[in-house]
Structures are given as C-alpha cells and as structure tokens.
C-alpha cells in the first residue's frame, strides 16, 4: 500500500513506514494527530484524561483549576503535535507537558499571592470578594472522601515536596518505567529512585498508625 500523499513526501514516507510497523498504539494515534486527525486526538484525550486529571489535581490541590489545567494539557499536546517524535513514548511526553504546566501554575501563584482577603464583595457586602481554601489543611472535595483514611492519605501526599509526590504518583500509575519517570522529572534514574524512596519513607511515617493497624482492610 503506497503512502498517502501530502505536501511533504519525504516525511510522509518515513511516517508511513513507522505506521506500518509494530507501532505503539499511542504513537500511531499521535501520527494521525500530526496529520490533523481530530478523532485520533479525541481517542487520546478519552484514554488519558483520568490519569492526567489525577496527577494535576494532586499537584494543584484545587479541583476547578485542575480541570482547566488538565484540559490545557491536551490543548498543548495538540498544538505541539508537530514536535512529537515516534521515538519518544507518548505518555512520557504527555506527563512532561502536564508537570510543566502545573509547575508554571504553582510559580504563578507564588508570584501573585497578595490579594486582600477582606475586600468586600461589591454586591454582597457581608461576604468577602474571594473565598480561599486554606491550603495548609488540604481538604479534598467531599466527593473524593470515603472516610478519614482517604483524607489522611491525600493530606500526607499533599505534604510531600512536589518532585517526590509526582514521582510516587507516576510510579503507581504503571504506565511509565523508572527511566521514563526520570525523563518526566528531568533528573537522573538514581535521583528518581531516591525521590520515590524518600517520599515513601515520609508517607510511611505519617501514615504509621494506619499502616500498622491496616484499618482500611476492615472498612473495605
């Protein structure tokens, strides 16, 4: 079967050969996205919206912002599709974009923290203009809480440094190898394993009472 005709026949031949070989399904979809195939793009969004949303939420600790940013991750994937290389695993590329956007948002928040909490709402004088969640005591939305245990786990994770938290979350998702996690975190393999180890040691300490008793085994 001859390769499809495009304006760039050389590149088209190379990509056609990649598509005809045993190609990772995600890479095959991304090649179609590069050709402007919106259904291929929608398939990738459907497949990865949950893991991306999980990661973004646990980095930002804000459900509303997490949804907006998670959508922006995929918009960036589409806009950057021309830069995607088949040699790179799609999930590595995807989670790298997700992490970078989260870090940008965290830095933006740290640069613009000053806004009076006491400014009255123009229409409701007895209410402040903005109401902020107390980030120090992170409370996940009610829909996420099945009990005290889950809240403790979420809080313990939220208390970790970002790189340790991200490393642990990516590790448990199983879509990425340790080498690929290192690529997302932009650090060495040994540093990545060290982050996971240190993060887990902290979590074991914070959740010690629950880990010792296995209380959630009784409630499940």
């Amino acid at each position, binding site marked *: 079967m001859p390769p499809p005709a495009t304006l760039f026949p050389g590149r088209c031949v190379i990509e056609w050969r990649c598509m005809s070989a045993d190609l990772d399904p995600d890479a095959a979809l991304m090649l179609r996205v590069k050709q402007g195939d919106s259904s291929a*793009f*929608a398939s990738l969004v459907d497949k990865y919206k949950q893991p991306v949303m*999980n990661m973004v939420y*646990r980095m930002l600790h804000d459900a509303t912002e997490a949804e907006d940013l998670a959508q*922006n991750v995929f918009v960036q994937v589409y806009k950057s599709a021309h830069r995607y290389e088949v040699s790179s695993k799609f999930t590595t590329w995807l989670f790298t974009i997700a992490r970078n956007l989260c870090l940008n948002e965290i830095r933006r928040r740290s640069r613009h923290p000053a806004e009076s909490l006491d400014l009255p709402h123009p229409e409701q004088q007895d209410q402040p203009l903005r109401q902020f969640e107390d980030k120090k005591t992170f409370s996940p939305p009610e829909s996420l809480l*099945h009990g005290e245990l*889950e809240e403790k786990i979420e809080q313990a994770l939220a208390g970790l440094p970002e790189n340790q938290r991200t490393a642990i979350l990516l*590790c448990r998702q199983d879509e990425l190898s340790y080498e690929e996690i290192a690529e997302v975190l932009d650090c060495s393999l040994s540093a990545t394993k060290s982050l996971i180890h240190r993060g887990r040691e902290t979590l*074991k300490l914070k959740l010690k009472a629950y880990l010792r008793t296995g209380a959630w*085994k009784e409630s499940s």
Partner: protein
Amino acid sequence: MTDDPLDPLLPELTWRQDISPEEQARLRAWLAAHPEAQADWEAEASLNEALDRLPDVPVATNFTARVLQTVERETQRQERGRASIWRRWGWRWLPKAAVAALVLGGGFRL
C-alpha cells in the same frame, strides 16, 4: 528496610503494581531468607494498598468535547491572524516584490 547487597533491586519491585510472577517469587524467597525484614516489607505493602485507595478525581463528562472546542477555537484564531497579516501587509509588498523580480531578472540577463 535492610540492604541486601546480593539483591539491591528488591525494594524497587514493591513500589510498582506490575511486578511479574518471577519477581514475586524472588521477593518471597528473599523474605524467607530475611525474616527480620518482614515488618518493613509489610509496611511497604500496606503503603501500596493505601496509595491504591486514592480515588480517581471526577472528570466532567464533556471534558473531551471542551478540549476539542478549545482546539477548534485556537485553530480558527490562528487562521484569522494569518489572514489579517496578509490583508494588512501582503498587498503593500506584492507590487514591490514584482518590481524587484523584474529588476533582478533583467540584471541576470545583462
């Protein structure tokens, strides 16, 4: 957790969900040989169970549709921008480019 110089990769096996049957057998054999590490190992396994209890964050049912709408909007905005640049600058440069082509073409013939 005790360090076993003979099998330094064992701790990393428990951090992930997808350890193979061979790796599980290797773990069991190692724990049988190092009963003092049993408590540490149980803590690792318990932490894995705790992390697995983290629920999926709710995703809006129209998530994908909204992403596609945003992409469509961005694409149209870029196309409008390109068309605007051409309308603004293209007509000014076209006659100049034609004259330049004539001059250069005449110069080569000379």
